[in-house]
């Protein structure tokens, strides 16, 4: 369960203060798929960064499994992210000069997984996104859709508890985008992990269990919560 309590995030100094997030609170049950919806600049990415402990809001708490992650030390929050969270970005951020295998290996290395236990995990993840035959290819040789599938493999390889996806289909055409969406939702259902998707695409949002609508840094409405 993720509890977000009274998050406020501002940018700028005194006379030119800009409130990016204003008193945001909601609760997400384990294994849910959540869409954070809103126009560009409404604060969706900022909210996602806050929930993952990358960003530090002025006030508020993010309680995951009873623990306020915003109160953790840098070392502890890094460890938390490497073991329990993963990310997919609009611009993929795969390492073009590295092989697909090495790209997927990175989160395991960061989490300190022993080399002997990596191979099977990496191959399973690449198989799940149907890129196992590209294992030894450099990531720059992949198409856009393949790059995002590689990013999905990298995101699922260490069996995260929460998967954040920031506009995962924003740079893809509808056909390749649908493939990536299917991968994410199947993974969410089969492994009962929490999937948090930032998007402004209503069709993608409607596939989620919960929709949180953001406008100008405030919650406009939350749909789907029982």
């Amino acid at each position, binding site marked *: 369960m993720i509890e977000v309590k009274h998050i406020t995030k501002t940018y700028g100094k005194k006379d030119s203060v800009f409130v990016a997030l204003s008193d945001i609170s909601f609760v997400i049950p384990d294994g849910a798929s959540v869409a954070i919806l809103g126009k*560009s600049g409404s604060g969706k990415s900022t909210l996602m*960064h806050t929930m*993952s402990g*990358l*960003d530090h809001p002025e006030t508020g708490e993010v309680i995951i499994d009873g623990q306020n992650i915003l109160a953790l030390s*840098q*070392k502890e929050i*890094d*460890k*938390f*992210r*490497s*073991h329990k*969270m*993963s*990310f997919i*970005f*609009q*611009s993929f*951020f795969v*390492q073009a*000069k*590295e092989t697909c295998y*090495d790209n997927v290996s*990175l*989160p395991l*290395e*960061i*989490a*300190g997984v022993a*080399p002997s236990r990596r191979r099977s995990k990496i191959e399973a993840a690449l198989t799940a996104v149907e890129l196992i035959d590209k294992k030894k290819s450099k990531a720059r040789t992949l198409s856009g859709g393949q790059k995002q599938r590689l990013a999905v493999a990298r995101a699922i390889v260490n069996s995260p508890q929460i998967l954040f996806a920031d506009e995962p289909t924003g740079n893809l055409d509808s056909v390749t985008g649908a493939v990536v969406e299917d991968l994410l939702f199947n993974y969410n259902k089969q492994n009962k992990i929490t999937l948090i998707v930032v998007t402004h695409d209503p069709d993608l949002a409607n596939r989620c269990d919960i929709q949180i609508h953001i406008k100008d840094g405030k919650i406009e409405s939350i749909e789907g919560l029982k």
Partner: protein
Amino acid sequence: MKIRDIAIRAGRSLRQAKARTLLTSLAIGVGAFTIVLSLAVGAGGRTYVSNIISSNTNIHEIIVQPKQDKINGAAKPQKYTDDAVIDYGAGYTMKLLKQSDLDKISKISGVKSITPDYIVTAKYITGINNEKYRVGVTTILEGLKLEFEAGSKDGVENGGIIISDRYVSVLGYKNATDMIGKNIQIAVEKGSDSPLNPETKLFEFKVVGVTKKSAMAIMPSNGVQLAPSEMEKLFNYNQGGTSLANSYPDVVVITDDNVNSKDIKNIINDMGYDAQTAEDLMSFIFQFINVLQGILIGFGALAVLTSVFGIINTQYISVLERTQQIGLMKALGMRRRDIGRLFKLEAAWIGLLGGSIGAGLAVIGGMIANPHISKWLGIGNISLIIFEPLSVTIVIIGLVIVSVTSGILPARKAAKLDPIEALRTE
């Protein structure tokens, strides 16, 4: 993240920018090359010189000269003293040691023997074919190690003579071995006679050894050498009755085996003489080598200093180019410390690569050049370039440390990078 994984990733990102990595490490390589080669030349030079010193000198040997007047060539006339002096005119004089000085020195406990440097001017040397040749006559020194073509030092005390191989054929002998046991004559003029028509006496000696030029000899003996007792006879005939009788420019003191010759040297100096051990006399060569080596190492250090800026520059650019990669790694939970290590290890690889290339080229180049240099200098198969594995290793390790230190600032920049900023694309 494990250090091993970080090191592998560091190596991989360097391989992904081969040209840049190579060029950056080449600057370090120049420094490594220069430093390794100068250390090898210094080591070789010192070994060569200490071989020369141990072949030519005896650690128990002290050379004593009279203390010369400080004000020499004074405009004022000098007061008479009964010192033995050679007067060169214009107020320039050279003091000599007298028998009384020798007696004083030989009374010092720890002095085993004292041999004056007899100055004998021989007229000529002649042998089986009666041809006459000029020749230098010197006293055989106990500490001097000679290399013999034939024969040995044995028997030189009993009317024997040691002669350079240069005289074998000119005096009419087939070869060095042929000359051993043969009698030769040295002609000396009587100094006390009128210089216009002096009496000349032939001294006869039996050849006991024929020396050859030695690579280790600092002053190759190319004349003849006699035992001190024989030299004394020649000297007395040559200089007896002149003003230089019983006076010597210097004497060689040999100390007992169980005393430190430096202590005796100090005692003699305190008595008002100018004493130097054989090692003192040679030490200037070491100083020369050390200064030369220092200058070469200085050039190497300059190259290393330049490469420091190269590494800082390269690594800064690398951080800027890879902000997204760094941001991603931080988002995935990689610790600041590990990000810093990644960049420091990249710098370490650059240092290791450059250091190994430079040191490797220096070793290969030195080994190829070494025989040619030795041949050119005519020192046989003695190495003037000696690579010590320990010092080569220390140079490489030192350069790795320098590289890592240069990588600290860029690594800190990478570690401090804000992942949110780094991952922002719009």
